[in-house]
């Protein structure tokens, strides 16, 4: 591998600084409230320097979310490896997600706001790590079908409904202060409801 040039290193450092400032401001002021100007100021650089690295605010936000969701997918995969049976495995995965975001709920809130927006929502929702999370759920259901635990009916629909159900509990954490345990209890019931029709034993 070629050693990175000094310029490439400097550019990388700038990106890291911008991303960490942006993460803080999005958490404090929300997606709408954080401006590129504020982010540049917080990172101690010019607006131009920010734009040299990111095309716009949505690009910056997406980069943060994609990094996080990549880490989240790793955490979920690891949690799934301890699961026994499909319900337990899914629950462990979702609990890993709630644990992952419990200290950064304001950022999750900003992500939901962007995720529902007609302009930036589709790109965020179809980002590669989101596909990985979906695939991870499908993987668990497919495994359960192979073990004879579940029937194969509506597998893809069940998987996306499980993912939506997992996401739909975040507002309880964001606005009602639900603990990870409360989210987990809710999630357990949701998984049971959504798998009920496919249960074989």
């Amino acid at each position: 591998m070629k050693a990175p040039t000094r310029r490439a290193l400097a550019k990388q450092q700038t990106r890291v600084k911008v991303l960490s400032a942006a993460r803080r401001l999005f958490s404090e002021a929300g997606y709408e409230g954080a401006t590129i100007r504020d982010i540049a100021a917080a990172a101690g650089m010019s607006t131009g320097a920010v734009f040299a690295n990111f095309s716009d605010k949505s690009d910056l936000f997406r980069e943060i979310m994609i990094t996080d969701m990549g880490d989240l997918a790793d955490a979920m995969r690891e949690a799934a490896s301890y699961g026994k049976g499909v319900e337990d495995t899914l629950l462990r995965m979702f609990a890993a997600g709630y644990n992952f975001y419990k200290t950064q709920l304001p950022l999750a809130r900003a992500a939901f706001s962007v995720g529902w927006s007609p302009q930036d929502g589709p790109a965020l929702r179809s980002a590669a790590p989101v596909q990985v999370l979906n695939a991870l759920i499908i993987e668990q259901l497919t495994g359960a079908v192979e073990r004879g635990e579940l029937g194969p009916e509506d597998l893809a629909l069940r998987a996306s409904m499980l993912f939506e159900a997992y996401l739909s509990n975040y507002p309880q954490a964001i606005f009602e202060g639900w603990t990870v345990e409360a989210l987990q209890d809710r999630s357990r019931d949701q998984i049971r409801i959504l798998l009920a029709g496919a249960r074989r034993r």
Partner: protein
Amino acid sequence: MTSARDLSSTDELGGAPAAPSSAPLADGPPGARQTQKEATRNRVIAAARNLFDTQGYEGTTIREIARQAGVSVGSVFTTFASKGEILSQVMQDRLDGLYAELDRVMPHLRGDTLDRLRTMFAIHFAFEARHTRLFLAHIAAAYDWTLSSSATPMGRNQRLQGIIGEILAKGVAAGDVDPAVDFQETVDLLMAAYAWVYRLAAWNNADAPTLTAVMDRQIGLIAEGFAPR
């Protein structure tokens, strides 16, 4: 793009025109001021509905709403505290029509719980399908930082939840809903499915029959979970 900072600064500006004039209301021509205020309010609502429906929640600014309504930013703020509150009012005006229709139809619905849930949501989609972006704006607004407590974004509106609850209660009485099922959880799952279908709609330009078909499958799957065993 309007930042929260922009909004709060216009908010301060908006305070000025709101200052009450010295003439007491009772002495003026009856309701003249009220009528004027009502007209402004209606124009703001109409302009806002258009903008939210085309630009989404985030893409709509108070300034643009004022411009399209032909009123000053200040007079928008004499009636509404925030963008979120305007959207709540837009949705409430629209949904009043929908719920009036549902109040009329629901008592006459026959069939099992699954049928009645499907019909109830189909009525929603028939009503909302041409304004899916407006509905998405309604959902997105729930996460707005500047949201005031007087706004009622999606999910905090209790009417749909109440209607679903009644359908489930009837189902328990009729024996096709397991009495041990947690109503609130089932309601929340149905609401999550409902919101998700709107996302498909807005991003894929799906029409009402398509939305209804997707929702029907999801309701079917949730119904398997609340069936007595």
